[in-house]
């Protein structure tokens, strides 16, 4: 889409969408929201970028390899953290745990914050992949 108005407006609005998505992810354990909702909002910003700028320019910034690396890394981190929490959680194994912190702070809640971040990355990349597969048949 070669449209000047769309390009200028999207330059302004995409950072705000991403900041809102990050806010929803990072406050997932304090307020409504969480990994899935925030990741979807982040994914819509990627979709807007893909729709306004064409495929070539998007491929420079959001290449398939980079996105796939992010998603697989987040998936592995999620599996390791959640498996560790499952194994050491209820069976009286005295392995070191993440600190719980003070209630109300952002750095609190043990495993919730890193798990939310991993879920957010996975969901945003997956939503973007869905869109680009429907849009042009390739990523």
């Amino acid at each position, binding site marked *: 889409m070669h449209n000047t108005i769309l390009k200028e407006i999207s330059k302004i609005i995409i950072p705000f969408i991403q900041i809102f998505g990050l806010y*929803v992810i990072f406050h997932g354990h304090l307020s*409504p*929201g*969480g990994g*899935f*909702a925030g990741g*979807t*909002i982040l*994914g*819509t910003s990627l*979709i807007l970028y893909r729709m306004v700028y064409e495929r070539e320019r998007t491929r420079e910034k959001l290449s398939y390899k980079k996105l796939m690396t992010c998603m697989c890394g987040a998936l592995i981190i999620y599996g390791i953290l959640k498996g560790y929490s499952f194994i050491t959680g209820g069976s009286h194994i005295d392995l070191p745990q993440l600190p719980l912190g003070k209630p109300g702070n952002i750095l609190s809640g043990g495993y919730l914050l890193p798990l939310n971040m991993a879920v957010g990355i996975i969901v945003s990349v997956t*939503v973007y992949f*869905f*869109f680009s597969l*429907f*849009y042009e048949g390739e990523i």
Partner: protein
Amino acid sequence: MQMFGIIILLFLIGASIAVSVIKDLLGAIIVFMVYSLLMAILWQQLNAPDLAITEAAVGAGITTLLFVLTLKKIRGENK
């Protein structure tokens, strides 16, 4: 708030009947998006803001986008 919820519920029933009755596909998609937005407002009224955020992002945003893209594809238009 009780009255507001009842009005939203009536609109919800109307929208869900209209989706299955309307013959025009694009119109049906738009009515479906309106259904999702009303559902998000109703979740918020039922004290479930978490679901409201998810419904507004997924139901009204992503699903409508995918439906419109699919409609464009099955009509055979090139962009």
